[in-house]
């Protein structure tokens, strides 16, 4: 299955590898964008737990930003943040 490409069909639309969602950049769906304020962030990680796309970037236990390749702009992080450090901007 090494020579598989999307235009080489397998029955039922099977893709002979896993983790394919990573290759599908859903950031293009976004019509509003979260603006995260690093200064005010208390690092509670509630945004990271709440994000349905896993687009909140965390390293060494700290939020480092939001991955715009995958963020769909749903606004759940902004809604859930107890310290209002995420705001949704248009576009």
């Amino acid at each position, binding site marked *: *299955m090494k020579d598989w490409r*999307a*235009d080489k*069909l*397998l*029955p*039922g*639309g*099977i*893709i*002979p*590898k*896993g*983790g*394919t969602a990573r290759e*599908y950049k859903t950031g293009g769906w976004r019509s509003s964008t979260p603006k995260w304020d690093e200064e005010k962030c208390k690092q509670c990680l509630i945004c990271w737990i709440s994000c349905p796309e896993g687009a909140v970037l965390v390293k060494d236990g700290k939020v480092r930003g939001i991955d715009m390749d995958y963020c769909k702009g749903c606004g759940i992080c902004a809604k859930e943040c107890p310290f209002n450090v995420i705001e949704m901007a248009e576009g």
Partner: protein
Amino acid sequence: MKDMSKKRIVATTGASTVAEAMRQINPDVVVAYPITPQTAIMENFSQFVANGIVNAEYVTVESEHSSMSACIGSSAAGARVMTATSSQGLALMHEMLYIASGMRLPIVMPNVNRALSAPINIHCDHSDSMGARDAGWIQIYSENAQEAYDNTLQAIRIAEDKRVMLPVMVNLDGFIISHGIEKVEFLEDEKVKNFVGEREPLLPLLDVNNPVTYGPFDGLGGFFMEHKKNQADAMERSREVILEVADEFAKISGRKYGFFEEYMLDDAEVAIVTLNSSAGTTKYVVDELRAKGLPVGLLKLRAFRPFPAKELAEALKHLKAVAVLDRAISPGFTGPLFGEIKSALFDLEKRPRLINFIYGLGGRDYTLHEASKAFETLMDVAKTGKAKKTMDYLGLKEVEVLA
């Protein structure tokens, strides 16, 4: 101790013959949700599970939508999977039926044909399976308990064949066959085991060393339409597989199957086309009328999907008149089988006259009287070359309809 490996001829119900086929197949996963009249199959099978004589993972779920979902998951994982249903249960599975066939999962499901409500009714008709006509499932019909057993065994091979990889629905008439007692011949366990073999799944989901993705999105920029053509092509290829499997089954059982059975059809001038148990009653009347010298015959369709249009046209072309019996109705059209037989005959230079009888809805009896009535009308159509009515009802009570 009773030796279970010997060939047995027993008197039993259609439901228990199907359960016996399932015991001998011994699937990896059996998913069950009860619905009359299918319940008898699963009751029997659950006893095999309780007695420890099958290895199947027996999953009881909270609805038929869930039962087909569980079948889909298990089949994608690589298991050999079976379930059974009827009527409202099949209707509740409806959206999942398309997912099973679209993901090319060889699930085998006996469907004990029962009417769909309303009015509420638990008895036999074919409105359940006819409603699932376009779901991409292979549909096979069984005249009696023996055929239900034989078809269930063959369904495993047809479904899992690499040229096919499609789910198969084995239909048998609710109560008439599922609960009626008949003589049935069972094959030896070992013969069945060798016949069905083991499933060799293509890219199973549970092969953790080779991860695969099932059910991905396939939108505007993708290949949805190509996948659908691929699926339709597989259904086309199932034609040869159905015949090959039937040949192989004949070698171990002595019982021959094809797309349909022709009964006294070669030299007939008029014939009935029907599905399932009504064929048995019709054969009896064919014999009676033949004894009186009348040129009558029967064609009993076994494979409804794939639909053997070419072969049907060849088998029916010499007839003067054909009556298609439908145990279902498509309001605003005719019976569903009638429309399909009609289209199968369209390309013939000279076509038989065709009439449609709706019979047996909600379990209404189809007796020798109804079969005789159908042949009587057919003989008249053959003689005059005209049908008074294209579609009519058999066994309809005369009642006043108030509004």
